[in-house]
Every structure is written in structure tokens, then in C-alpha cells.
């Protein structure tokens, strides 16, 4: 396996988050296809010959600048999610990525979860027939709040991206419900209409802590189709171990970040686009913006048919 050189750029994120230190750096370090060759806070070093991939977690004010500079320097990019705070910024990144033809992978790593992969493959193989509904829950117990950004921007796109990965059907309208997001209790309900009349209801967000749960308390998808029904529970697979100190689960397989990096490696070395690109990140952000509008107005908001959306996407 060819080893790709990785430059770590920045260590910022939504709220308290530092995905670079917590997820991507350890992920690259553990993956046989990558070697970390350096780190930068100011976005320098993009001209280094030993760098193939830049892992971008710079503050949002500098996302567009740093990602596009890396791409223009001929480097592939892994970019933390959300890629940007606005769809307009994301569209700029998407345009440069398209121009350069390089891999620019937004880190929606949950779609690489084995349960979601299995669901996606089963659906693509026609095992449930033509899909007409998805129900999804993505609930994280505890952890620091990402206010003022909110879980609509932080967690919900993981779930909506997974729904897209499973069904391949873009969202055409959204009705969203949320309670004021000022504490750790921040749940959003997204009622989505997709192409082909498929509907979905996606619940995502953060709840108060639960004893014995570290992270996701519920992460699952139900896919209904003309010929069958599929349940995928992404809090599995796992063995359950119960002991004096409590209950935990474990599994020997690779985690979602590792699997995402495998896709990044394959796309770079095969010279093909990654299965997930800046246009997916753009779709996710347009959905977030439409959902915000729905929460503010109490109305159903359509995507893709207003002038602004067209302008952003083109």
C-alpha cells in the first residue's frame, strides 16, 4: 500500500471540539495507508513535496482560504465537518475542488459505519425494493454543548448524510422542529421529503448524560421499501460484556474514521473522486439552512427551487 503523506492543518472545530487531535490525527497514525509528515496552524507547507493530503480543521473564518489554497497547491484534502458555516462558503470550496479534480472529502464518517454500509448495499441490491420511507435516530448522550452553533449543524448532517448514502435520494423539502438550543439538551426533528416521493423523519442531537452510555445512545435507521423493511442499528455490532463495574460493548472491527480514511486512500491512489465530496457537504448545509428557516417560520421549506439556492449550487 502506498503511504500518503499527511499535513495536519489546524485544530479548531465547532464549540469545544478538536477533531484533529481526537479523531483525524490518531486515525491517520493508525492507518497503514498514511503517514503524518507535519502540522501547521497558519496554513503554510502546502508546497512540500512529501505532502499528499492536508487534514483541515482550521477555524471557520479561514476554512475557504485554507482548503482552496491546499487544493490549488495540488494537495488532496480531508476537511472537518461542517465544511463551512454557510452554504455560500461551501459552494466556493466545491467549485475549486471541481476545478482541480482533486479529492476533497468532508468528514461525514458515520456513513462508513458497517451497519450503514450493509444497509446501503442491501438497498442498492434491491433487497427492500423501491424505498419510500426512512426513519433515523442519532442521539448522543452528554458531552459539551456546541452552542451557539447547535446540533442542527453539528450532528444532524451525520444522519441526513447517512440517509442519503443509503437511499441516494436528495431532499426536496423540510419541516423542522427544535426547542431553544441553549444547553446540552438540543434535539432537532427533521421531516424530509425526498425525490421520488420518499419521506423521512430524522431525529438528531444531544441529550443529557446517561449512566453507562459514552456517546451515541441511539443510532439507527429503518428503511421501508416496496418489497421489504430493513432495520440497521449502528450502536452494533458488539459483544456485550457485563461485570461488576458495569456493562460495555466491544467489537474488533475498524471504526468509522478508519473506514473513511480507507476511502480517502483509495480515491487518491486510484485517481477517482471519493464517494463523498464537497457537493454532499453543500447539500447538507443547504438542508441545515432550510431547516433553520423552517424552525423560524413554522413552515415547510422547499430546497432547490429558489433563486438563491440555484445561485449557490451553480
Amino acid at each position, binding site marked *: 500500500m502506498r503511504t500518503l503523506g499527511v499535513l495536519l492543518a489546524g485544530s479548531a472545530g465547532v464549540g469545544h471540539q478538536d477533531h484533529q487531535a481526537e479523531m483525524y490525527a490518531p486515525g491517520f497514525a493508525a492507518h497503514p495507508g498514511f503517514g503524518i509528515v507535519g502540522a501547521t496552524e497558519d496554513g503554510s507547507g502546502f508546497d512540500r513535496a512529501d505532502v499528499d493530503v492536508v487534514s483541515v480543521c482550521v477555524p471557520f473564518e479561514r476554512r475557504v482560504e485554507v482548503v482552496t489554497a491546499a487544493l490549488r497547491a495540488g494537495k488532496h484534502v480531508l476537511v472537518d465537518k461542517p465544511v463551512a458555516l454557510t452554504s455560500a462558503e461551501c459552494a466556493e470550496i466545491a467549485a475549486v475542488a471541481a476545478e482541480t479534480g482533486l479529492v476533497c472529502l468532508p468528514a461525514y464518517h458515520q456513513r462508513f459505519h458497517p451497519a450503514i454500509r450493509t444497509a446501503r448495499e442491501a438497498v442498492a441490491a434491491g433487497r427492500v425494493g423501491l424505498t*419510500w420511507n426512512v*426513519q433515523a435516530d442519532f442521539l448522543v448522550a452528554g458531552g459539551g454543548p456546541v452552542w451557539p452553533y447547535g446540533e442542527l449543524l453539528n450532528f444532524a448532517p451525520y444522519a441526513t448524510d447517512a440517509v442519503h448514502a443509503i437511499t441516494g435520494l436528495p431532499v426536496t423539502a423540510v419541516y423542522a422542529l427544535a426547542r431553544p438550543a441553549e444547553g446540552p*439538551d438540543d434535539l432537532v426533528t427533521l421531516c424530509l421529503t425526498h425525490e421520488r416521493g420518499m419521506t423521512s423523519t430524522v431525529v438528531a442531537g444531544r441529550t*443529557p448524560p*446517561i449512566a453507562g452510555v459514552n456517546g451515541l445512545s*441511539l443510532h439507527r435507521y429503518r428503511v*421501508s421499501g416496496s418489497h421489504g*423493511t430493513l432495520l440497521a442499528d449502528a450502536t452494533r455490532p458488539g459483544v456485550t460484556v457485563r461485570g461488576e463495574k458495569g456493562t460495555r460493548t466491544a467489537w474488533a472491527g475498524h471504526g468509522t474514521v478508519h473506514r473513511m480514511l480507507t476511502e480517502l486512500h483509495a480515491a487518491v491512489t486510484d485517481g477517482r473522486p471519493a464517494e463523498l465530496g464537497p457537493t454532499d457537504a453543500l447539500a447538507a448545509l443547504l438542508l441545515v439552512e432550510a431547516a433553520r428557516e423552517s424552525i423560524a417560520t413554522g*413552515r415547510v421549506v422547499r430546497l432547490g427551487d429558489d433563486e438563491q439556492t440555484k445561485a449557490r449550487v451553480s
Partner: protein
Amino acid sequence: MERDSMSNRPLGILVVGAGAIADLHVAAVAADPRCVLAGFADVNADRARTAAHRNGGVFWTADLAEALARPDVDACIICTPNDTHEDLALRVAEAGKHLLLEKPLATTVEGADAIVEAFARRGLVLAVAHSHRFYDYGRTVHDEIASGAVGRPTLVRLALLGGWIWPDWRAWVIDPARSGGHALHNGVHLLDLVTWWIGSRPVSVYARGQRRTATELDVHDYLEMVVRYDDGAVAICEMSRAHRPTALAHRDVVVQGTGGLLTLAWDGEGALLWDEKGAHTLDPGVAYGFAAQLGAWLDAVTAGDAGTSVSGEEAAMAVALGVAAERSMALGVPVEVQ
């Protein structure tokens, strides 16, 4: 009410409408010593006669007025199609009898209010057969929430998914003029249950419906109804007759609260069967729920204890939610609850 509690005679129950669901009510009546089956009234005389013969040769008639005039009839259970509930219930109230009425209370908000008012005015006991409140799962979830185990509910999911059960195009259930539409027919079960669980006031409904079994259907075989409550809680209710395979009997419950998470797994009743046709969850049956439901109504009738019976006001709220859901589906927008 005094008359019943002072005489030792068990309460005489007239069953109005001797169709599919009547059997479950009759079995519950047979098992409760406080009441006795007084007879059947059904516009279809054959049905009334057959039901009477099968149940020890009790009185039967095709004329409700004749049945209501009998001195041994103290109370009625109405199990007729939804569009007949309003007229029949008002006649029962007029005759001074207590009533256990099948859901939905009525197919319109005005009809529901008229029934509630008629029984309240005469001091008669009206209970509505929101039977899921009496199933063990429904009560367990309610009691956990009521005990404070998960704090205040912020998000509830309830899904009842099954395959096609409607016999053919002649079934009244798929005629919206007769059933009120699927949100009023089966949807009210879920709308009532989640509202009882959450315990606050519903303010709006956004509902989406699909017609998966046949595009020619006049009702939606799949419903996705999202209710918002005045304290910000959200309930997602899915009712389906559209899922495949038809043998699917899938129930899912999630309650996220300010202090914890409750889940009831799809195989939560604990028994699974694999056979040549695949895997099946084993349903413990609904009989115990119908017995508990009858018992709660009899508590109210004989002892004036409204305890767990489902009041007309609560059932009227379920009707208002069902009507809002149907309107939301027709208009494609969220609708305020009347």
C-alpha cells in the same frame, strides 16, 4: 348510578354492532362478574341473530330503539363503523344509558363535542375504547414517565407497523367518508397514547401520508404524524398498513426525557418464532387489554371511580388531532390543533 350500586343485579350490557371487534368486548363482558350480556343490536339482523345464538341465546334486534327500551339494558358498548358513532351515541345518551364507545369517538370535532356534552349533561359515564392504553406496553411506558424515571419527555416515537389487513375495496374502513380517513381510524390510537404519555397540550400536527399498497386508495395506508406540544415536546407517530412483508408486526417506542431515555425494542415482548415463513414476534394477544378497558369503565359506572377509563374529553382531543392530521396531509402544511 345509584340504582346500579344499590341493586345486586349485574349491569346489563347491550352490544351495538356485532362485527369483528364486538367479539373481544363480549369476551371481556363474560369475564367480569359486575356485568352481564343483555343482547345485541345490529342493523344487519343476521349478524345480530348469529351473535346472540353464539352467546347463549341472548336478546337480539335490528332496531336499536327496541333494545334501548328494555329494562335489563343499563349500558351499551358501541362497535359500529366510525361514521355511525355520533348518531348512535346521542341515542344512547338520550335513553339514559352509560356508554363504552369504540374509537374514534366521532369523525368530526363537532360530533365529538356533541357526544361529550350529551353524556356530561345527563351525568352518564362515557368511556372510549382507546385500547392501547390498557395494553401492558402502553401502561408500562406511561407509568415509567409518570414516576419521573426519564424526567419530562422531550421526544417520543411510537410506530405501529403492519402489513395489509383491509379485505377488499368494499371495506368501509378504506372509505374516508365512513372511517374519517386513516388518521381518525387507526391514527387516533397513537395520537391518544402519546398525548397521555406526554401529559401536556398538543398545539400542532404535521402529517404526511402515503398510498403504497395501491395508488387508487382513498385513504393513506402509511401515516407519519408529528405532534408538537405546548412545552416543546415532539411526538413522532407512525401508523402503517403499507409495510412489507404483510406479516410484519413491528412496534417501536422511544421516549427521550430531560432525565433519561426509555426504549422498547421491537422484540420487547420477548418471544420470537422462526418458521418456514420467516421470523415472527409472538403477540401475547389483546384480550387482557379489552378486559382491563371494560373494567375501568365499570369502575366508573358502578363506583363513580373515573380512574383509568378514557374520558370523552381525552377522546375528543384524539379526534381533534386526527382531524388536524388529515387536514395537514390534504394541505401539505403543519396545522394547529383546534
